[in-house]
């Protein structure tokens, strides 16, 4: 009995190597964002939050209106890349926490497809980190958006 107890105590927690999932099916809802904000009220060392939200635009392209964007990704590579971005951002900025959620599948015009949320003691770190994460997500994550037109057809989205 005693030996077993010691053995149990000695069990070493294996560090989770799998990167955190950032992908959600469909749009990010306003209530989900509210829940995420509310969770931070116990972290009383935080003085500033910065949130970026990407919303699908009903762009007019050659007489056709974008009704939705269909997102796909190369999941394993995207999560590895996001993990590396996260590490770099936490090394560079004095952040308390950071949360990223990106949609996959169909997100209609007016709905939210990207939610980046950074928090820190003072505002500069939260604002600058959020800005940098958004730029890196757009440039470095293997994600593709297919703009679906209202009547028929589609075109592949181009980031600028």
């Amino acid at each position, binding site marked *: 009995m005693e030996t077993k107890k010691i053995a149990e105590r000695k069990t070493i927690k294996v560090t989770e190597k799998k990167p955190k999932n950032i992908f959600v099916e469909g749009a990010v809802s306003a209530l989900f964002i509210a829940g995420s904000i509310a969770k931070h009220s116990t972290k009383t060392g935080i003085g500033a939050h910065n949130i970026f939200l990407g919303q699908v635009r009903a762009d007019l392209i050659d007489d056709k209106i974008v009704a939705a964007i269909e997102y796909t990704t190369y999941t394993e*590579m995207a999560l590895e890349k996001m993990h590396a971005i996260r590490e770099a951002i936490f090394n560079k900025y004095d952040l308390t926490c950071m949360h990223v959620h*990106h949609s996959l599948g169909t997100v209609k015009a007016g709905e939210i497809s990207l939610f980046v949320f950074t928090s820190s003691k003072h505002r500069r770190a939260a604002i600058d980190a959020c800005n940098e994460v958004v730029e890196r997500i757009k440039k470095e*994550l293997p*994600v*593709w958006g297919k703009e679906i037109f209202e009547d028929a057809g589609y075109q592949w*989205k181009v980031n600028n």
Partner: protein
Amino acid sequence: MIIKIFGQLSDVIGSSSLEVNDIASTDELIKNLQLKYPALTNSKYRVAVNRNIIQSNTELQTGAEVALLPPFSGG
């Protein structure tokens, strides 16, 4: 070896994955694919081996994970 195809390239190739055999390097892969899919010559894309974008010709080991990535457009 399975080649993963993403975004607009899946329209060009007509599939989201391809099986190829006896390919020793990424340059050889691209040459073969361009012969089979001439429209690929006009497409903009990068090649990832084992989930890292390569900058120059790369040897393909058995079991390598190869992917063709058109310009990203997330967010």
